């Protein structure tokens, strides 16, 4: 395991290893609840809370969790945080809770959260695990916002509930339906991949004539 800097632990999850756009984790909520920006924000915040809380507990108690039952223990911790998030949202912001419906409870099975526990929080210090969780949670939020913005603008003609195109715009209903989620994710991944490739190319050209000889150097 290569040692990383604290700063890198945060940035990695936000961009370089964005859970949705690069690791393709947590796609269920990313596809299901991103039909409006408001839903994306609420889901992003709830997931952020569960991820940070779980990483804190898992990294704190990692010495006492036997290896054989670690996955069960992680799921137990995650499920507890999800239940708390569910109850608190219902009590404090009932309208948003109503919006998200069953998807709050489904945060339990978001493999991004379990993945961070298994890959990071169970092996690193509490501080680093928190930084990693904050970074990954933020990256997840950014991905949801990108999808939610795209889908709400095209599928509803509005952004955060405010009409953009006026009365004459015919909403692309498919964009707020499940197929719209897949289409949006596909286009965003395409754009993201194209941008990454292009950036690598630019780096390679800038290093000319030294870099052109070996592509590996640029990558």
């Amino acid at each position, binding site marked *: 395991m290569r040692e990383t800097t604290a700063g890198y632990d945060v940035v990695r999850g936000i961009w370089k*290893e964005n859970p949705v756009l*690069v690791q393709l984790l947590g796609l269920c909520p990313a596809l299901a609840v991103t039909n409006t920006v408001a839903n994306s924000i609420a889901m992003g915040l709830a997931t952020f809370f569960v991820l940070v809380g779980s990483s804190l507990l898992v990294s704190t108690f990692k010495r*006492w969790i*036997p*290896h*054989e039952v670690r996955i069960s*223990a992680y799921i137990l911790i995650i499920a507890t945080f999800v239940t708390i998030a569910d*109850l608190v949202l219902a009590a404090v912001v009932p309208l948003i809770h109503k919006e998200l*419906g069953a998807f709050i409870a489904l945060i339990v099975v978001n493999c991004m959260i379990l993945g961070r526990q*298994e890959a990071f929080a169970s092996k690193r210090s509490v501080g680093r695990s928190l930084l990693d969780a904050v970074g990954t949670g933020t990256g997840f939020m950014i991905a949801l916002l990108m999808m939610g913005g795209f889908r709400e603008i095209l599928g509803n003609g509005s952004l955060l509930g405010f009409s953009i195109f006026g009365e004459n715009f015919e909403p692309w209903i498919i964009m707020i339906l499940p197929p719209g989620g897949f289409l949006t994710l596909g286009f965003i991944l395409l754009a993201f991949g194209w941008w990454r490739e292009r950036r690598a190319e630019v780096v390679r050209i800038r290093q000319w004539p030294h870099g052109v000889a070996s592509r590996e150097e640029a990558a």
Partner: protein
Amino acid sequence: MSRELPTVQNGAADQGSGEAGSAGGPPDQPPAVSSGKLMLTLGLAGAIAGLVIVLVFGWADPRIQAYRAKVLREAVQEVLSGPARYETLYVTADGLSPTPPAGVDTVMAEKVFLGYDASDEPIGYAITGSEPGFQDFIFLIFGYDAGRERVLGMKVLESKETPGLGDKIFKDLEFVDGFREAAPPLVGVKPGAGTGDEHEVDMITGATISSRTVIEIINHRIEDLGPLLESGAAAEAAGAAGADDAARTVSVGRESGAGTEES
């Protein structure tokens, strides 16, 4: 891509070799732990998790219930277009009664709300109902004037319909307003395809099942409670003329529709 990925795979491999009883695990494999300790760890963790959830629930539940009661109060006001006051009538085997049937929880008991205007004349009933929609049960409340046989208004209290489509049953105000002054039995028609008939209600494009469910809930509830409400309205008129509370308890020989949930 992810530099943690190989570690995950190692973890999975560890698990596999452990199950196969192989002794040659990777060097970071911890020594085997007794099953008693495993059960103790998970049991303890489960007990703590349960305790935490119970504490949070104890804090959250009164707030959730208070919010639901507030929503219901506001909904009664809304579907009856702001009555001066309203009273709660319990649906019993003998009819509508202002006192709950003995031995029944007042929260769970089936009830309707009778609204009065400023001059203490009854306006109509607010009736709750629920049926499965597209995703889950749709809970709604509607106002109904039994004397004139007109729906006064409709409001969805709880639903998990598809965001952006099915949720238009409460977000699309044209759909919601379409129920005002509609006459039961309601008939759903495509928007713009109506003939102006008083039974017609415009449905929602892309949310056929959700909007049809709303219409059916109202039809079924009026069908179920209709005789009760009509005689109730008649007794109410008599009651306003000077009779006491007892006159409000009207008797019709029917079973009250069980299983209706207050939200």
